[in-house]
């Protein structure tokens, strides 16, 4: 009798486990250094599958100073639907100097406020990475050197947490774009080239998202 009950309980919990495991959307963090195009990518994905955007894009670093979420984004691939929550995070850096914003035609008070918000945003992004994401899309500007300390540290942190990660070599529309350099910098991970701005290679992007995070 006890054995029967245990079996029953086990099979019920297996069913509910599976139910929740497949129903609960994976929370995918979009990470990377400032100005890699994270928000442009997040907006592209959100617009393609939900019709609306996540947040404003800009050339000024640290435009995104709060982690922004778009929940239950359903991506259709090969007749199947993959549901994810997108978390667009502030660009990670080890330094923020408000004086850099003064070059972008900003008053000192605004620059100081922006830098304070930026530091809070980076701290928040690190917290999300340690606690609250199930997978990571790591976005890099493929026209810049990928071999930076922030990239090395973040990929190390992601690996140590054993999170699935895809490297997105963004901005392939730029003349200096070098996708191979990005792939060489992170040989243990799959690199997907794209231009989030132009919408280039988005089919492969969605294939890979479904494959890695579905």
């Amino acid at each position, binding site marked *: 009798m006890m054995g029967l009950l245990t079996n029953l309980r086990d099979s019920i919990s297996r069913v509910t486990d599976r139910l929740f495991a497949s129903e609960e959307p994976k929370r995918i963090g979009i990470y990377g250094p400032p100005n890699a195009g994270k928000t442009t990518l997040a907006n592209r994905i959100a617009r393609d599958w939900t019709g609306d955007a996540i947040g404003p894009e800009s050339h000024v670093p640290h435009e995104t100073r709060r982690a922004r979420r778009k929940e239950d984004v359903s991506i259709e691939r090969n007749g199947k639907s993959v549901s994810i929550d997108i978390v667009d995070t502030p660009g990670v850096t080890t*330094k923020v*100097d408000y004086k850099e914003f003064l070059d972008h035609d900003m008053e000192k008070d605004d620059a100081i406020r922006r830098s304070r918000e930026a*530091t809070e945003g*980076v*701290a928040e992004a690190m917290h999300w990475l340690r606690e609250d994401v199930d997978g990571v899309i790591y976005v890099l500007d493929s026209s810049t050197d990928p071999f930076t300390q922030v990239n090395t540290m973040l990929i190390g942190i992601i690996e140590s947490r054993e999170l699935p990660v895809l490297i997105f070599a963004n901005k392939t529309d730029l003349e200096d774009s070098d996708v191979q350099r990005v792939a060489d910098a992170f040989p243990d991970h799959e690199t997907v080239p794209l231009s989030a701005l132009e919408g280039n290679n988005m089919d492969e992007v969605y294939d890979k998202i479904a494959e890695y995070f579905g």
Partner: protein
Amino acid sequence: MPETTNSDNGVQIDLISGSRMAGLRSMEKIRLILDGVREGNIVILEEGLSPDEESKLIEVTMTEISPDDFSGIEIESYPRAETADQSFLDKLMGRESTKKLTVIGPANQIETLHKDEQLISALVSRK
């Protein structure tokens, strides 16, 4: 850290041994590093930090940045040795191979000139 006279015409460099760090908790390590860096010192760690400690270092650094006083840190280390040379038992026990020389300094005083797998070249200036 022994009291030193950080004279006007020099830059203090602290080389911290792996064994010194091994006896400290994560937050104690981060405090040791940031206290040194905020005084304008260059801190060199013989064995570096774990990924988790690096993420906390970034987080704590961010909370301490303040205009015209502290603009953050510059940190450089060699890429972590590939996990291939790490045994299954090490992974199981949570032992991470983190032995990698790491240089940390105030962002406004240290500038990385060149970095590859085998060489880090940095320019250090006085405050």
